[in-house]
């Protein structure tokens, strides 16, 4: 558990990235990203994050703004501050009240999803 937290990469709130971000482990994004995000672990988008691109990860936690599609092999969790404009696909989904979500949802716990 402690080693997983240490392996999580963090992109700060004042960082603006243009391009593709790839991580083998978990990643937390609090800044802005114009491009795709590919994560082998858990991708977390903080409340102030803005992403314009697609996300593929094992699990995705969204609290910020996303314009793009999400493909998660396991779970997508949308916090109450999440704004998602795009399609999502995962095995599991949890959504808190307050979410803004426009797009297509393809979530089925009985179906397998591959990145």
């Amino acid at each position, binding site marked *: 558990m402690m080693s997983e937290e240490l392996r999580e990469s963090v992109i700060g709130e004042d960082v603006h990235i243009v391009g593709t971000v790839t991580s083998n482990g978990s990643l937390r994004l609090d800044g802005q990203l114009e491009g795709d995000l590919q994560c082998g672990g858990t991708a977390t988008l903080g409340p102030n994050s803005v992403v314009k691109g697609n996300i593929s990860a094992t699990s995705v936690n969204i609290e910020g703004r996303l314009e793009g599609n999400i493909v998660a092999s396991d*779970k997508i969790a949308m916090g109450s501050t999440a*704004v998602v*404009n795009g399609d999502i696909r995962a095995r*599991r*989904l*949890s*959504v*808190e*009240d*307050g*979410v*803004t*979500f*426009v*797009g*297509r*949802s*393809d*979530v*089925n*716990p*009985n179906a397998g999803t591959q990145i």
Partner: protein
Amino acid sequence: MADFKKAKMLDPYSLMRAIARSAQDGEAAHGDPAAVRPGAGPGGDEGTGGAHAGGWSSAGTPRATPRTKVGVGPGAVPMPAIGAIGKTIQPTRRTIRCFECGYEFQLSGTVGAIYCSRCRARIELGDVTVTGEQREDIRTGGTVHVKPGGVVKAGVRIMAGNIILEGTLEPGASVTCTQWLEIGPGAVVSARQLDTRKLRVAKGAEVRFSGKLAVQHVEIHGLLEADLEAEGLISLRADGILRGTVRGSHLQVEEGATLEARMFIWGPERPDVPGGSGR
């Protein structure tokens, strides 16, 4: 005061009714509600004897246990278990809507009928169960339960506060519900026959509507396949399945649910997105 917080909560209305009843019967050794006010004594759950000793008079009235008779003799009135009243608890209220004028008001307690305070129309509040063929209109502020095997014939209109639908609505029949409409397993119904604010799809139910379904709140424990539009909360529970098109302001999805739909969920500030539906 700290002990109050540790004690068990109790409906004060049940307590007061029981005290009034026992005082009327002359069974209680005391008529002062303050004397039976739950004390600050520790413990006191139903299994070990209910009331706190401190709440009873010093005359040695035994502790009240669940259904313990106060006083002696076979005619003694059973008392509920006495706990601590940490705060005033409001009685359960239900919303009654007049079918004539549409006036809504809150009602607590159980009565057979009531008169609308605006138009003075009589509103029946009894519950009705339909097990066979229903050929007459039903109009009640209570609950109508159409059991499996129950058939609401064509042309029949059911107007109720709550409706549990597990039977068949023939084409031409309709239901109007002012509170919750629950569709259970085996129900045969179409969206055009429903007029309800709140919809619940029970576990095991499979509801497929070809038309548009507009409600205020919807709670899904089973399968719902529809063009759904909700002004309030769309709650998809862990065992629920939602398919089709969903438009609303509030969405809540529990982990484990299946969601295969086009989603248009936005709050008061609607983002400019293509394909969104206007309201």
